[in-house]
């Protein structure tokens, strides 16, 4: 029978036994709940070996690509090396910091060797002092850098450090992770892309990717910001927005009186999309707005599996 290696121990599987049952029998504590491949509480990651398709049913494509599987459903036919469903890590240097209007900055980092990702996925950055924050990747794998869009929060421990760091500063990058990337399942499907604040970072990457793949369906892009100054990427978005099938809506909560761009991104999105039936939806930005839009998109007909959302949660901020 095949065996599984976990935390330095090798456990031989008994006939018909799942990976979860074998680990529990060997005395490991692995969280689990339904034990029927539904609740995903027992997800682990295969570093080597094939866990089997049955153990990955219902997982997100990005999770499957990382080797994640439900241990309760895994009855592998080959040896597996498994670990917690955590992320791979590498050291990189900071290349460039550029102020982009308001409190928004563009940060570029070296691409770690062998780093395979899709634009719109996210990484965890670890700076000296073991501080960790997650950022989405605005770059495309063909770009010679990783690009992040960062809001400099007042008292932000990571954003303050990043936006004032010198090129050459060393950081750890963990990931990539997340499923907020263009998946090209159906080139005719309408896309709705909403980026609020620096949530525009993954949206920009998805838009670039979709247009590179010659996506044929309509693409509605909504950029929302706090102030009109922070409607960054203007030239880049206007250029991409000139494609025949792209509708670009840019709005900010505050700006000069009478500016037609003043408006709320959630409201503008719902006006532009009375129905989400059949749409592939990407929502990125502050958690409250993203979660509100996600619910509305679902209630207006989008399938849950066709909504990718990245709610940004600010790290704890010390006063």
């Amino acid at each position: 029978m095949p065996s599984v290696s976990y935390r330095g121990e090798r456990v031989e599987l008994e006939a018909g036994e799942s990976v979860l049952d074998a680990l529990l029998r060997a005395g490991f504590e692995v969280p689990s709940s339904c034990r029927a491949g539904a609740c995903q509480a027992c997800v682990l990651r295969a570093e080597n070996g094939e866990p089997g398709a049955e153990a990955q049913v219902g997982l997100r494509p990005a999770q499957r690509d990382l080797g994640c599987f439900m241990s309760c459903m895994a009855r592998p036919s080959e040896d597996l090396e498994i670990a917690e469903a955590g992320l791979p890590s590498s050291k990189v240097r900071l290349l460039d910091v550029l102020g982009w209007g308001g409190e928004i900055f563009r940060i570029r980092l070296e691409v770690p060797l062998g780093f395979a990702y899709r634009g719109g996925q996210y990484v965890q950055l670890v700076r000296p002092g073991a501080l960790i924050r997650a950022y989405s990747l605005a770059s495309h794998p063909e770009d010679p850098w990783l690009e992040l869009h960062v809001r400099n929060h007042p008292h932000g421990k990571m954003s303050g450090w990043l936006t004032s760091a010198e090129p050459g500063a060393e950081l750890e990058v963990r990931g990539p992770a997340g499923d907020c990337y263009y998946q090209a399942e159906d080139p005719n499907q309408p896309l709705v892309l909403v980026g609020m604040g620096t949530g525009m970072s993954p949206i920009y990457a998805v838009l670039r990717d979709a247009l590179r793949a010659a996506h044929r369906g309509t693409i509605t892009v909504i950029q929302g910001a706090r102030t009109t100054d922070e409607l960054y990427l203007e030239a880049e978005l206007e250029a991409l927005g000139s494609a025949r099938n792209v509708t670009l809506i840019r709005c900010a909560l505050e700006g000069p009186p009478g500016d037609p761009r003043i408006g709320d991104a959630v409201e503008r999105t719902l006006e532009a999309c009375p129905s989400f039936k059949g749409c592939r939806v990407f929502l990125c930005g502050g958690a409250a707005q993203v979660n509100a839009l996600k619910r509305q998109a679902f209630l207006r007909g989008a399938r849950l599996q066709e909504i990718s959302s990245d709610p940004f949660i600010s790290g704890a901020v010390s006063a």
Partner: protein
Amino acid sequence: MSVYEQLGGAAAIDAAVDIFYRKVLGDDQISRFFDGVDMEQQAAKQKAFLTMVTGGPNNYSGKDMRSAHARLVSQGLDDGHFDAVVGHLGGTLKELGVADELIAQVAAVAESVRDDILGRQKQAV
């Protein structure tokens, strides 16, 4: 043969979750109980629930049902809310073309966990 098998197994349950969850979330009587929950996790739980009530593979116990809903009971979850959810369950299965007698079977399974979900002692029938 279980309703789960007659429906077509796990793939059919996936389709049912989408319909069921949209009905539940669109119902103003009960939607507040879903405020702030992760929609994917919730859908996974609903899949497990639909799998259970249709007689598919599951290992849920009354104790799981009780602890999972304790927080909602403290927020006022009651028989009316439970009835609304069972109504949406029936509506979902009807939309999927399930025969009334099978829907009744499923509703009976859901009924059997009512007291667990509402955090009560089993009532004599």
